[in-house]
């Protein structure tokens, strides 16, 4: 388990460092997704499967989709030639290699059976749910208020940009 943890942690640090040092925003996002997946593996090894699943679904899924959406909306050169240049192997080889290492690790953990991951101390989703809707009920309510505030704020800000978008469409 220690070896698996160190490999996944190294991938997380490496890809986070690559993510903050890229010039191209899309390449940085690719590396950031790899970093989040690696942290998900680390959480799984730490015995927190629920947190690991949330990390993959919400961080690497939903939040990264928002980033990709905004980058595509700002349109940093969306021409076809640009797309062709972006699809050259050096752009995606690094993230794919790091993700493959993570995949091998996951397959190894799953196949190791009863002598591997099932022996570690695990905090099950049931415990988390009971705690979430028991003593932390007020916190859940506050989080829902925060998400509502974020929703209203984003709607308000995006609605004010409306004329700008129409003007952009008219020009192009």
């Amino acid at each position, binding site marked *: *388990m*220690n070896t698996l*943890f*160190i490999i996944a*942690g190294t991938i*997380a*640090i490496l890809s*986070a*460092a690559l*993510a*903050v040092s890229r010039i191209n*925003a899309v390449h*940085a*996002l690719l590396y*950031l997704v790899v*970093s*989040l997946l690696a*942290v998900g593996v*680390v*959480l799984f*090894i*730490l*015995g*927190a499967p*629920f*947190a690991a699943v*949330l*990390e993959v679904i*919400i*961080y690497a899924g939903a*939040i990264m989709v*928002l*980033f990709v959406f*905004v*980058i595509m*909306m*700002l349109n940093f050169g969306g021409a076809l030639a640009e797309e062709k240049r972006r699809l050259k192997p050096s752009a995606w080889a690094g993230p794919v290699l790091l993700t493959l290492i993570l995949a091998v690790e996951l397959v190894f953990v799953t196949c190791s059976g009863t002598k591997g*991951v099932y022996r*570690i*101390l695990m*905090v099950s989703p049931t415990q*988390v749910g*009971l*705690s*979430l809707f028991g003593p*932390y009920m007020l*916190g859940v309510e506050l*989080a829902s208020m*925060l*998400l509502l*505030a*974020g*929703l209203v*704020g*984003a709607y308000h*800000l*995006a609605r*004010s*940009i409306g004329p*700008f978008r129409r003007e952009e469409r008219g020009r192009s």
Partner: protein
Amino acid sequence: MSPAVPAEYSLILAGLLFVIGLAGVMVRRNLIFILLSLEIMLNAAGLAFVAAGARWGTADGQVMFIFILAVAAAEVVVGLALLLWFHHWHRGLDADSANEMRG
């Protein structure tokens, strides 16, 4: 039954990730990269919470991780909407061009 890895290892990992994110916030001037580094920092904080929860075998760490997830989601939504505004006003994403108030 025991925690899989020593708590020091995961705290070191969380600290290194946090420092990488902090360096990104301070060094980069592109607003997208600043938001991205903020995500790395929040993620590192959540990892530290889960590591502490795993150290004592309680669910509290994962509960705090879920709260951090909610904060990160709200933060990134409002941050990206403000980023679109910024791009509208300054025709770019350079944080240094925002050196005066009232746009």
